[in-house]
């Protein structure tokens, strides 16, 4: 395999490859350039050379036809618009606005003409021309048989005397000796015919020519009258009469002049100052325009397509198909008076034919050249592609300029390039070369530039193409838009940018606000687009573009919002995880909107965890300290108690016995203080709490029963109110027992002699609340806060067995079990309350019951 490959690769040495590449670029560039040049000439020629005769071929060419058509149109306009409305002395007496519109039309088509008193004279290097208009003899000759008196009034704006002899007015660029006034029309035409071999003649609405000019060279779309309506038809000479330059009149009092050598142009002319015309106009406009907008129509005279127009450049636009109006009727005017003769000037045809032959020759040469270049280029390209394939197989890595460009983009660029080259070479006329040639008017620098451009195109295509071949044949992994590596790198690079960082720093709220603004803007844009479309009648392009833009913005913002909402639920779960101190292992993308927030929560979580650990550690240390201290206290205390006991058992005199008794009491008290301090320290630290589900009511009853003896001894009355049957809670039974015990002890100890103690358990919302109320036997001179402080007792002077920690312990234990402990003082009324949250299970259970 390897040796084969080596053999193969020997076929493609580097110098050969480089040479082949350069040659391929040049040949391919030449082929493209040649194709463009060929197309350019083809466009000029627009014909094949099947005639054999160069002159005949030229006459058949599109180039010649266009020139001929342009000439013909000018002459038709000259005939029917000028000559038909001139008096016998060749003075234009027709509608001047119509004339100016015609001039405008000529300018628009870049026709060359000379202005004269009567109107204009077409200028042509190529053609000799003659155009005449013979006014009909008498009114009968003008009138259509079906026309009425009313129509007759509009028919001609030119007021001329009815001649008994046909009056012929003519214009020509021929020398005066060729034709003269003395000849009759027929004689002049015969003379002109004899002078030229390639003429076109329109006479009596019949188009004739010499043999070589036949065919479809003059083709028009034109309206014709059918059943009193103008109908657009397409006919070509000689099948039908050629109405170019013809006119019609309709029941709206208009004249319609028909021109346009490819797309027909119609001029509508209202007879000036004619009462009937004005009435007709008004009627028409009133149908179309609201009464309050109706202008003074006396000055409006010309209607070109869909417009009225006055001399102050005022336009009244109306729309609607006038032809479909029920009262519309059209009548064909007479064009038999028009005579048009066109013939190439002497020697012109030969000259142009020669040029044409030159172009044709070039065309053939270029065509051959292009074909050869194409073949060469294809061979070279095949060689290069094979070389690339071998190189791809051979090399581990594929370097080059294109390494960092994703494969997909390379492919797209290649296809775009190929597509562009094909379009350039095609007949469509697009492409940079065409533009270059057009701008530089096909001069040498333009051609060189164009050629270089083509070579560059070829080089780019070849380079990318061979690169792709190397990758495909080598089966090399290449950065692609789909590979995460590149995407990751792109996004990493994006994330490094200041723009992205500033975006990341924004809070979710800010981002959402921004996005909402965009959404509103998009909606507004869409609204404006709708308004533009429906209320102001804009053309569709702009509103549609706006609509698309707004949709794009809308979709982007909404998709982002969907992603954000998904991320927000992640954030919620993160917060929940933080609350429950659980690990959070869901991934959040780097570019997510909530990344910063998640990071912040992570930091908080870490800090909290650290703080909690720190606290637990310090609490442990505290407990250890307390444990050690209490141990150190307990050991000597053990001795003290032991020896006091021994003392008690020995024979003592009364005084000593009394002292021993005191010692005994105090040592017992010391013992209880040490025990309480230790348990308080433990409870405050929150460790050593065994939570289990229990019934607070039962616990209360047990505590009460447990304290039965004490209560009886105290001689005080307890009023117990329990409204609930059971109160399931989570708590540490032993600790809560201590809470009840301490509160009841406290109440028994410090309540007034003979007073009642109220113990009460009731449900408040989702909590079960225990309260103990009693009237203090001593004036309350402390605050609620003070009493739960350690070692504080209501009566500071009193010395009993208590450690003074009872309520502190009650408070600590309640809190350790997740409840709350409160003291309220109102005068001498002392109220302690314990509130524990009920477990939720009971609620549903109760509901079921």
């Amino acid at each position, binding site marked *: 395999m390897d040796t084969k490959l080596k053999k193969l690769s020997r076929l493609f040495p580097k110098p050969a490859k480089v040479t082949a590449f350069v040659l391929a670029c040049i040949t391919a560039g030449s082929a493209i350039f040649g194709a463009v040049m060929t197309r350019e000439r083809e466009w000029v020629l627009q014909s094949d050379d099947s005639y054999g005769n160069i002159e005949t071929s030229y006459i058949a060419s599109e180039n010649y036809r266009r020139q001929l058509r342009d000439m013909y149109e000018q002459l038709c306009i000259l005939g029917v618009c000028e000559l038909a409305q001139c008096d016998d002395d060749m003075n234009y007496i027709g509608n001047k606005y119509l004339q100016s519109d015609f001039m405008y039309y000529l300018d628009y088509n870049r026709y060359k003409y000379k202005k004269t008193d009567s109107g204009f004279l077409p200028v042509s290097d190529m053609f000799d021309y003659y155009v005449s208009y013979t006014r009909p003899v008498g009114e009968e000759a003008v009138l259509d048989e079906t026309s009425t008196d009313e129509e007759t009034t509009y028919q001609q704006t030119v007021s001329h005397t009815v001649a008994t002899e046909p009056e012929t007015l003519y214009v020509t660029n021929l020398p005066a000796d060729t034709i003269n006034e003395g000849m009759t029309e027929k004689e002049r035409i015969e003379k002109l015919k004899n002078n030229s071999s390639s003429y076109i003649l329109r006479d009596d609405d019949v188009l004739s020519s010499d043999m070589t000019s036949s065919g479809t060279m003059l083709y028009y779309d034109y309206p014709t009258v059918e059943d009193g309506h103008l109908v657009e038809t397409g006919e070509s000479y000689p099948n039908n009469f050629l109405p170019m330059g013809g006119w019609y009149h309709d029941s709206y009092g208009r004249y319609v002049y028909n021109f346009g050598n490819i797309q027909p142009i119609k001029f509508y002319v209202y007879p000036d100052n004619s009462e009937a015309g004005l009435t007709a106009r008004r009627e028409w406009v009133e149908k179309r325009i609201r009464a309050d907008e109706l202008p003074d129509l006396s000055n409006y005279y010309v209607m070109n397509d869909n417009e009225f127009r006055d001399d102050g450049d005022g336009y009244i636009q109306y729309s609607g198909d006038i032809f479909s109006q029920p009262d519309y009727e059209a009548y064909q005017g007479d064009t038999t008076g028009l005579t048009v003769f066109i013939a190439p000037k002497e020697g012109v045809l030969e000259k142009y034919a020669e040029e044409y032959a030159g172009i044709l020759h070039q065309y053939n040469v270029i065509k051959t050249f292009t074909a050869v270049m194409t073949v060469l280029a294809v061979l070279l390209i095949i060689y290069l592609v094979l070389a690339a394939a071998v190189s791809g197989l051979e090399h581990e890595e594929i370097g080059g300029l294109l390494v960092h460009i994703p494969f997909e983009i390379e492919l797209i660029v290649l296809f775009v390039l190929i597509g562009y080259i094909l379009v350039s070479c095609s007949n469509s006329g697009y492409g940079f070369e065409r533009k270059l040639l057009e701008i530089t008017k096909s001069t040498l620098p333009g051609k060189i530039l164009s050629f270089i451009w083509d070579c560059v195109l070829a080089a780019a295509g070849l380079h990318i193409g061979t690169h792709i071949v190397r990758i495909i044949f080598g089966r090399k992994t290449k950065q692609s838009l789909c590979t995460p590596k590149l995407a990751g790198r792109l996004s990493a690079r994006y994330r490094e940018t200041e723009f992205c960082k500033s975006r990341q720093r924004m809070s979710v709220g800010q981002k959402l606000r921004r996005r909402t603004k965009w959404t509103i803007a998009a909606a507004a844009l869409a609204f404006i687009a709708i308004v533009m479309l429906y209320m102001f009648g804009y053309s569709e392009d702009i509103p549609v573009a706006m609509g698309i833009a707004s949709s794009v913005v809308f979709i982007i913002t909404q998709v982002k919002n969907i992603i954000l909402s998904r991320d927000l639920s992640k954030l919620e779960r993160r917060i929940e995880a933080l609350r429950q101190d659980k690990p959070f292992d869901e991934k959040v993308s780097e570019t997510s909107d909530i990344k910063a927030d998640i990071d912040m929560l992570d930091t908080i979580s870490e800090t909290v965890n650290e703080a909690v650990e720190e606290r637990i550690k310090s609490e442990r240390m505290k407990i250890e300290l307390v444990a050690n201290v209490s141990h150190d206290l307990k050991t000597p205390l053990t001795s003290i*108690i*032991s020896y006091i006991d021994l003392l008690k058992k020995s024979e003592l005199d009364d005084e000593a016995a009394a002292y021993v008794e005191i010692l005994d009491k105090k040592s017992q008290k010391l013992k209880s203080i040490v025990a309480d301090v230790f348990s308080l320290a433990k409870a405050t630290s929150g460790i050593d709490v065994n939570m289990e589900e229990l*019934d607070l009511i039962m616990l209360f009853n047990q505590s009460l029963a447990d304290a039965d003896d004490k209560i009886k001894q105290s001689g005080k009355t307890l009023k117990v109110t329990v409204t609930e049957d059971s109160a399931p809670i989570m708590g540490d039974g032993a600790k809560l027992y201590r809470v009840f015990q301490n509160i009841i002890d406290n109440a028994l100890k410090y309540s007034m002699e003979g007073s009642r103690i109220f113990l009460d358990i009731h449900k408040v919302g989702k909590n079960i609340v225990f309260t103990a109320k009693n009237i203090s036997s001593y004036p309350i001179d402390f605050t609620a806060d003070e009493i739960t402080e350690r070692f504080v007792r209501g009566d500071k002077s009193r010395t009993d067995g208590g450690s003074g920690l009872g309520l502190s312990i009650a408070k600590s234990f309640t809190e350790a079990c997740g409840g709350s402990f409160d003291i309220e003082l109102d005068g001498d009324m002392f109220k302690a309350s314990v509130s524990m949250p009920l477990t939720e299970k009971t609620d549903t259970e109760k509901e079921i019951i």
Partner: protein
Amino acid sequence: MEQLAATILVVDDDRDIVAAIAKLLELEGYSVVKAYDGIDALEKLAENDIQLILIDVMMPRMDGLSAIMKIRDKRNIPIIVLSAKSEDTDKILGLSMGADDYITKPYNPMELTARVRSSLRRYMQLGDIGSINKTDVIKIGGLELDKSAKQLTVDGEPVRLTATELKILELLMENAGRVFSAEDIYRRVWNEDAYAVENTVMVHIRHIREKIEIDPKEPRYLKVVWGIGYKIEKIKQTIS
């Protein structure tokens, strides 16, 4: 109350405490051997005929728990731990190491002597325990309930109980380890519907405790499970 003659080994690094306990026990009629650390204790144990050991946990050279483990390798005599450590975990540790009882410092001298007496009695009557193997006798630790004779003995010493107390105890002992709520107990013992019976049951429980426990405030057998109910602790026969 008959007094058993016995030699007790008292081990504590605090000589004053040892002296005090020795005096206390001698007053009760026991003979006492003193030791001041674990190794000392092991030596004294080998030298003397010892029936019971009172031992502290925290001591130099060898601590109490290690000493207990060493003793338990050879001897079966009752061991009572005497420690300033009052945590439940400490107690459990001590008992699982092989101690029979656990007294926290500062101890009540009365309680100390009571526990010593109780442990000794059980130890001395070891032979008898084996022989009483009737089916209607329930034994839990030092508690022994003869159902047919309606007789309860604590560490071999008969205790007088009322009929109700006996029924409650029987219920709890038969289901040792199980927690009964006041209602349960009332329904089963009184055979009546239970309503607001917490107090009634609790009073009986307290009375029972006063009779069977050395320290009713820190009961070994009959325990209140606060907010849930009552139970007799399931105690393995430690002396076997």
